[in-house]
């Protein structure tokens, strides 16, 4: 009988350990429940302010750490991530709050060819090979797609 009790104890302990570990494992692998990708490719300067406002509104709507926001820029919209952009300080502030900025490498190549020199980018912006590809990847991962 004691032999069976020991087995039962071991199985029960194991089950308790596994169930305690499961939420931790789930959190490490899935990340925040809500993830947004914001897309800008417009020439219209008003879209720059709009997308930054959208990003801030999304951050404000969730407790810290429970939302992910990435802004992807390509085409004329890449101007948002130029180093001398009038909104540079807002980008810096949003980046410190966890917003990720991704600049399209293809667009940078195209602009370099047009300008004769590479555009100077905001240091907070990471370069991705293709902006539209990046958007596709993020949507595939479950990001909510927003184009203001």
């Amino acid at each position, binding site marked *: 009988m004691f032999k069976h009790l020991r087995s039962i104890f071991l199985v029960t302990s194991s089950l308790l350990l596994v169930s305690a570990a499961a939420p931790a494992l789930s959190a490490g692998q899935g990340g925040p429940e809500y993830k947004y990708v914001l897309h800008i490719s417009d020439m219209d*300067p008003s879209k720059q302010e709009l997308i930054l406002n959208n990003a801030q509104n999304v951050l404000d709507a969730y407790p810290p750490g429970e939302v992910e926001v990435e802004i992807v820029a390509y085409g004329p919209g890449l101007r948002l991530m130029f180093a001398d952009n009038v909104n540079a300080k807002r980008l810096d502030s949003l980046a410190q709050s966890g917003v990720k900025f991704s600049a399209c490498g293809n667009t940078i190549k195209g602009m370099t060819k047009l300008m004769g020199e590479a555009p100077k980018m905001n240091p907070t912006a990471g370069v991705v090979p293709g902006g539209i590809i990046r958007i596709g990847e993020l949507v595939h991962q479950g990001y909510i797609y927003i184009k203001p």
Partner: protein
Amino acid sequence: MGENKQFKRALIGAACTLAFAAAGTAHAANWLMLQGTEDPGAAARANVWGFIQAKYEKDFSDPNATGGFVPAKLLGPELDAQDGFNINRARIGVRGTGFPLDSRINYFVLLEMGNNGITHGNGAFARLTDASVTLNYIPGARVRAGLFKTPGSEEGLQAIHVFDYINFTEMTNGLLLERFPNKGFTGCTGAIVTAPVTCSATTGNVGPYTEAQLQGGAGLNRFNSPVGAFRDVGVQVFDAFDVGNDWEVSYAAMIGNGNGIEFSNSDGEYDKYLYLSAEKKFGGAGAKSEGLKFFAWGQQGKRLLDLTNDTTANATSYDRDRAGLGVKYMKKPFRVTAEYVTADGMIWTGPDKPNFYFTNNTAHGNGADAKASGWYVEGGWYIPNTKWELDARFDTMTRLEDRINEHQFDKWTLGVQYHFNPKTRVTLNYEMRDFECTVAGAVCTAVNNNLKGVDDKIGVQLTAIF
């Protein structure tokens, strides 16, 4: 004498500006940057914009003892009526970066189609008032070239479509909104008016005209050229610097033809302009920025003037120097502005005497080398939680200082504005004017026979910006 003195005063004013800046703060919009640059990385290729100002005014002044009217009692630019409707400004412009990937180049173009001193009399339905390109390549030294507003007084430099009053102060209208002498001496031979008009080749006076004569086509505005519109064609180096603690220091140095919005430089001389401001920013952006700004400026130039009453072209060069300093505080619900301006040379005394207003009558002195000064204080109260704004302004100008025909113009303007939205408003102004020739003697007695009748004026103006 006057040539270096005005600039010295400007430099002293600039030094005081910096001294005050160290002590305190305030703001108004930075017009150098707002008009000469675009938001880097966020400007349109071509942003079409403009505004319309339509107004009604009525002047309550009385004619002189013989029924004659002088310009101060009539509405410009025609100066032939005491009340009426007018489209005083209708401007359309384009501004932007042209090649948006390169924020280092921007342009600004503006066309005037309203009825005012810019367009009056030249036979064209439109007049170019601005056409400039700014190169933003050198840190701390942006270069703007073309036709644009000269760095100077706040009243002249600021955008007119956000100006809080219908009419300028007497100081700005009389000393800074330049009228250019006609190329030849202007007499009044061939005038269509008859007695009792006083007009002769030796006096060059035109008018006063009675109501019947004005209705018959008599004209009191005898200028051939458009007003200077606070503009010049030239090149300017300028920039603004964030010096910490929310302080912004701006400067501008410009050289231009000295011919307003016209393109010739027939005298071969160039006007020089210098400007300095220090501003503590409270917040906001663009034309509605808030803060406390101190500013000082100077302008130095020469003008050709033909004073001899004959057919021989023999213009002489005269100095035209202007300088000023001021302060503007803007933090809603309050606004306060004060400016002081001095003028040395080319003091004009009326549109009815384009050249003769400098007078060759030694008994009256010579406006070509006369002096003048003026100042104003104004304030506004944006009534909280409403769309209403109350404004009040006192301005004064003394021209032909220390001459036997020294004039003084005092004016109170009370105003109410209703802002339908941030781009459309209606402005109601009531002006109380006291104009007089201040020196005892026969000359002022004759002048005051006309000036004493100058009375109040009321105006309503609708401004729509698009």
